[in-house]
Every structure is written in C-alpha cells, then in structure tokens.
C-alpha cells in the first residue's frame, strides 16, 4: 500500500474524529472492510472498535446496520455518534413504542447508521425495510455472542446469518469482538460467515499499560479502604450484584473522603447518563458498577479496575479490566478474592444444569403436551424451545449444545480460579488464554513479576455537593439559563 492511498483515511480520521493517529488494528480493519466482503476483527477492549466501522461507513455509499446485543450499549453508541455531529443515526429495538418505530421506518432511507437488536432481524417488517434501503455494511458488534462457546452466548444472535443470507450479495459484513479464544473465533467464522473465507484481523490482547494483581483477603472492604487511601482514582469497582454495589458504595462514601457513586440497571437512562457525566468530568473518584451496566462507561483516564467479586470467566474479566487505561497510562487491574467466592458461580451452574434437565424431560414428552409446560419454563428454556420449534436445530443438537455449554461454564470458573492461584506471571497466562503473543517486555507487569514500582497517576477530582447549588438557588438558576441582570 502506498502513502497516497492511505491519505483519505487519515484525513477522514482527522476531520471527523479529530485524531491524528490510528490505534493499532484500526487502519487494518477499515482497509479490510473496504477491500473484502467479510472481515472479522479481534481488537482488545478500548482499542476504538466502533471507530472502525464508523470510518469505513463514510467511505461506502450506502447504509450501515449495526447489530448490538444490549439496548444500553446501543443507545450509548448512538449518542456518541451524535456528539461527533452525525445526525443520520438511529436505533431500533423491541422496547420502543410502535409509534417511534413507525416514525423511524418512514424515514429509514435517510439514516446512515442504524443500530438494531438482533431479535428484530427476523421480523418481517424489519427485513422489508432493510431490503428497501441501500445497505453497504452490516456490523456484528460483540460478535462472540454468536458463539455457543462464548461467555455471553445470545440465542438471538443465531438469527443473524439467516438475515445476512437474505441481503444483496454485495453487502459487506464486519464482525467485531474484543475477546475470542481460538475456539470462539472458529465458531464465529463458521456461523457468521458460513465457512466462507473471511479476512481476519487480530490484535494482541496484551494491554501493556495494565498491571495485574490478585489480593486474597478475608476483609475486602478494609483492603479497599486502604487501597483507595493511596490510589484515589478515578477507578471502577465491579460487583456481581446491585445490592452489593450499593452497600459498598455507601460504605466508601461514609468512611472515606472520596466521592463515590453507583451505577447499575435500576437507574433510569437519564440517571445513568448523569452519573456517567459526573465521572467523566472528574466529579467522582470511584464508580461502583455491575458488570452489565459497566459497558457504557467510556472514560480515558480510569486508573484502576477492581473486581470485588469473582468474574464469571477470564473473558469477562479481561473485558472489564480493559476499561482502565484507555489513555495508555499506567493502570491496574486488581481482583479481590476471598476463598469460596466461587460458590455463587457453582450455584448458578447448578441452576443451569437443572434447566437443562428440565428441558431434556420436556423434549421426551409428546409435543402436543408441551403447551401445559410452557408457563413453568424459565426464560432461557423458552428461548431454547423456540429455537427448536423454529427448526434452527434438532433435539439432539440442542441437548449436546447444552451439555457442552455446561462443561464450558465449569471450565470458565476453573480457569478463573487458576488465574487467581497462579504463582507465575499473570500476563503470560492471559496471553496464552487468548492465543496471543506478548508485544515485548513489560516493566510493571503483575504481582508475581513485582509491582514495587507501580505508581498510578492521581487525577484531581472535584466532587460537587448537591447542597452547594441549593444555598443560593436564585443564583444557580440564573447561571443555568445564562440570565444576567
């Protein structure tokens, strides 16, 4: 590739996004999308994955459809694009009112970027619209969700290949993911691309500016307080439950000098965005988040990510830990472990096994009697059953799939425990896990290689008390609406 042909990309990057350089993997991904029909890009968290399809899309004539698993994630991406000045962007999901959907459809052709949730892809009205529009590119975000072997397998994702088949053969497809083991990667290739050749871009998952540490302690909160007194953040602490996130948040708020807030699914969209802005604009030191809702947090200078509970898998761990140090500066991924933390995961696993057994029982009954069992099925079981009744797989495939899913989940927990009990380099373990290679020597690597030199830059945080605005409310109000006397 000559310098000349590279220019338009760099120019666009500068114009639209205001960046002078591409991050690793971005340029390769964009160029591949422009040249090839099928691309699978495995880029580590915080490498700017969304920029890849956004930029590519500007160089393609038609629309870009982006399939995204979570509504919160979808809305987040939409608002980020809007902030870049892109108005031709919308999102369609099943929680929208009928009227809103109708409104979007009436002007469907005008949108350059359309975010959709996967379950909509099988709806006839959506397919119709998609065929009428001029689609150039379909992006499957979090593509690992399509894999049975992935951590967050989503049955809805299985509908994507079907949808792709119905589109014009010229439509390009880009699968994006941050975490894919060899197995998941192969699975994506075979399901999403029907074994057809795809161009693979794989960046090393090594995030050199993140140091890894595991602390085994009986008193996590005491450790946390001690840690925060030395490293006030900004940082994120992940929890496996809303209740715990709230409890520890309140405790930290009361027993430290820091501004701490929590962030989880009970907050409304507006409340989440307000808290996010506080965090982004240095009004909070620490955010206590649950995993599901931590996805939308985009902050460059997060200095540490702490896991208060045991993550469900190494994949999940690396993804969440990867939200620290997007700015490239020294950061820390710390996992707090107390023996028996894994019990909750084994408990969940047992539930899954029960659901599987229930499913096996149901499948052995005559089909005409299934109706009576329907109300008793869990939501997961209902999804499995729908897949079968829609003839997406046979009984045997389903049961075998579930078997494998269970053994996979067991392995995930074991792998996580292995990581915790390592006596050797943690980075090496993680790299091997993702069949990735090191990008060279890391000076501050992990607790086993030595963290004596670890220093986390302190970003000044200016907490705002709600009270400071209310003391002189007249003045505050004048300021808000720019009223001068």
């Amino acid at each position, binding site marked *: 590739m000559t310098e000349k042909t590279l220019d338009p990309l760099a120019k666009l990057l500068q114009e639209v996004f205001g960046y002078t350089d591409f991050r690793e993997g971005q340029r390769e991904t964009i160029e591949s999308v422009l040249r090839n029909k099928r691309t699978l890009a495995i880029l580590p968290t915080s490498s700017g994955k969304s920029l890849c399809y956004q930029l590519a899309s500007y160089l393609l004539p038609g629309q870009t459809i982006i399939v995204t698993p979570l509504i919160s994630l979808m809305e987040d991406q939409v608002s980020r694009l809007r902030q870049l000045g892109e108005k031709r962007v919308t*999102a369609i999901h099943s929680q929208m009112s009928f009227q809103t959907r109708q409104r979007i459809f009436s002007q469907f052709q005008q949108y350059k970027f359309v975010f959709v949730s996967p379950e909509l892809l099988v709806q006839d009205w959506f397919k119709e619209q998609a065929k009428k529009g001029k689609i150039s590119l379909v992006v499957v975000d979090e593509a690992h969700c399509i894999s049975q072997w992935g951590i967050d397998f989503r049955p809805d994702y299985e509908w994507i290949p079907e949808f792709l088949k119905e589109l014009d053969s010229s439509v390009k497809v880009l699968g994006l993911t941050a975490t894919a083991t060899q197995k998941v990667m192969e699975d994506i290739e075979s399901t999403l691309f029907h074994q057809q050749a795809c161009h693979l871009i794989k960046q090393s998952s090594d995030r050199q500016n993140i140091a890894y540490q595991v602390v085994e302690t009986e008193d996590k909160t005491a450790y946390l307080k001690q840690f925060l007194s030395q490293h006030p953040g900004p940082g994120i602490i992940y929890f496996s439950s809303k209740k715990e996130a709230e409890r520890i948040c309140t405790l930290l708020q009361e027993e430290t000098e820091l501004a701490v807030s929590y962030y989880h699914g009970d907050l409304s969209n507006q409340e989440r965005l307000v808290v996010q802005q506080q965090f982004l604009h240095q009004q909070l030191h620490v955010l206590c988040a649950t995993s599901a809702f931590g996805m939308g947090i985009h902050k460059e200078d997060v200095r540490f990510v702490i896991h208060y509970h045991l993550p469900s898998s190494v994949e999940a761990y690396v993804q969440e830990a990867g939200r620290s140090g997007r700015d490239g500066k020294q950061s820390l991924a710390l996992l707090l472990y107390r023996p028996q933390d894994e019990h909750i995961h084994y408990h969940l696993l047992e539930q899954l096994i029960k659901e599987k057994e229930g499913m096996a029982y149901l499948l052995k009954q005559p089909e005409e009697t299934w109706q009576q069992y329907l109300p008793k099925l869990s939501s997961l079981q209902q999804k499995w059953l729908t897949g079968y009744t829609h003839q997406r797989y046979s009984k045997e495939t389903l049961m075998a799939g579930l078997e494998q899913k269970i053994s996979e989940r067991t392995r995930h927990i074991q792998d996580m425990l292995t990581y915790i009990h390592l006596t050797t380099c943690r980075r090496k373990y993680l790299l091997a896990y993702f069949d990735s290679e090191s990008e060279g020597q890391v000076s501050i690597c992990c607790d086993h290689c030595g963290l004596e030199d670890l220093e986390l830059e302190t970003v000044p945080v200016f907490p705002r008390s709600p009270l400071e605005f209310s003391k002189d409310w007249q003045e505050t109000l004048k300021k808000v609406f*720019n009223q001068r006397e």
Partner: protein
Amino acid sequence: MTDDINIYILSLFHPKNKQRSSSVYQILRGKKTASTLSFCLFHHLWSGFQLFPYLSVEAYEQRLAELKAKGYLVADEADGKYLLLSQAGQACLLEHPFWMAFSKEVDHFSYGVAGPLFLERLLFLSQVISELSYQSKQYEPITSEEEQLFWVKQWLAKTKVSKEGLISNFYTEWQKLLEQLADSQRQRLVSLLTGHHKIGTTYYQLQQMYHWSEFQRIAYKIYDCQQIIHLIKTSEDFPLFASVLASIPKQTISKSAQLTYNYVEQGLDSVSIQRLRQIKPSTVQDHLIEAAVLLDDFSFDACLDKQVVLQLETYEKKQPQIIEWQFKQVQGFDESISFLEVRLYQILKVKQYDRENFRPTS
C-alpha cells in the same frame, strides 16, 4: 419496628371510617377494578394505588400485625377484618408530617408512572435550553433515548416565541415554581438540574447524602413530581411546563370503559350497549363505575334518574355515612333501586364532598 413503610400504611387508615384491610392491600398492589377504584375514591387512597406492586400478602399482614401490636391500628368491634386508626396511631402520624402530606396529596394512580417521566423530560428540556442560552451545540445530552431526543426536537420546533423569549420564559417558570416550594424540596430540584457547566445529581445520590431509606427515595421523587404537577395545573404561570406535562399521558380510564361511556353520552341505554359491544351487563356496570370515578366531567344526569336521586337523598338523611352503605340495606329501603344507581350516587356525593373539602394544596 415502625419504619417508613409502616408509617405510610398507617396513614391510609382513618379514625372513623373503617376499612377492610384486604381492600387496602388490593390498592397497594394496584388492582384496577371498579370496586377498588370506588374504594380508592371513598377513602381517598390515591397515593397508594400501585405503590407496592410486588408486596406479598404475608409481608402486608406482618406490617399490619406490627401496627396493631403497637396499638396504632385497631380492629373494628363488629368485624375484625375492618380496621380503624387509633388515637395512638393518630399521635404517631402527627410526628410524621411528610407521610401525612404524601398520603393526602399524591395521586399515584394518575401520576405514578407519568410523574417521574414528566420530571425527566423537564430536566432534559432544561438542559437543552440551558445549552441554548449559552449558544453551545456540542454537549452530552442527559438522555440517549430516541424517543426523548425526538420529542425535544419537536417541542422546540413547535415553540412560537423567539429563542431569547423562550430562554427567559423558561427561566421565569423555573423561578416561579421553585419560589412556591418548601426549602427541602427546592434544594432537591435545584440539585437535580443539569445545564451548561452544571451536571445534576440523582435521587439515588440524594439518598446517599441524606441517608434516606429506599422508600424515602422513591417517595420524595413521587412527591416532588406531584407537587410540580399540582402547581402547573392550578396556575396560569407555567404554560411551557404545562406543555411538557401534556406530552405525557397520565393513567386514566381504560379504553374499553371509555368506549362504553361514549355510548352512554350518545344516549344509548345499558341493554343496547351490551348488544352493540357484546359484553355482559356486569361489565357495562363496571365500565360505568370506572368512568364515574375517573372522569372529572362524568355525566351523572345521563345515568341517574332524578327520581332515584331524590329517593337516595331521602335515604341519605337517615344514613348520612354514605361510604358505609350496604346495597342490601338500601334495597330494604327501596327495592327498585339497582346496585349501579346506589354506587353512582355514592360516587357523585363523594366527589362533591371532595371538591368542597379538599382544596388544592399550595
């Protein structure tokens, strides 16, 4: 233990008008039937409608038992399923003026869902207008929901005044609104505001700061919304805020009941409506009761014969406690009067009484 929830439940009871505890439970769960709606109206329990949609019978009974053990609630002598507020209970409530005000002023039936949505919309619009006042276009909106963004665009497009006029009118409405609120409430609302160079706060964060219970957080939010809505609705000073409020439908009569009532307004009788809509007589009756309770301009004249009203007025002189009327006893007085007529008469009278006695709060 007398926690906030217990205090609130206590505030739903009355020293003189006995109430069936299971009916109060249905209201807290939010069962929308003709009988719960009438009960809500008769005992002024709108604050509780669907306030605890997941409350279990056991948990509810447990709370009642605690209140009875403290002597705050007493069982009616004739029938233990009915409860009355005791003197001790009244004394206890006096120490909790917020819960008394909440109980009296909140209409959770109409605004339980619409209220918080309205407040979020108002806050978002405030942010947009604040940024507009600073001529700033690059900012992070406090919503990422398509519906909200679209609504704001439309709202701005429809506004007829100039940009400067809009900003200053909007500011003035906020100022007038805040002036009329109590200190604590004003503090909450000012801190919630997001605008240019000011990021707001959330009720969750206020909860942390003021050490509220979870129920307090929920209740303050509902109460704040209700107060703003009340001020907007009872004054001419808030045309902009009123247009925001009008964009969010409150919970009201069900579509099916409305349809039945439309026929009544067109002059059709019950039998014709049954035939036309293919519904049971009891359903028509339920629809009319629902309409009578929920519609402000319900036409009682169309459903209640003058003769019947006169008869019931005579009966009322003997039995002035209208809400405690039993249909069987009314029948003993005049067997030609139907259940529907008795119920409608009760609703008519209670609404009249409410209009005269529950003046709008300021």
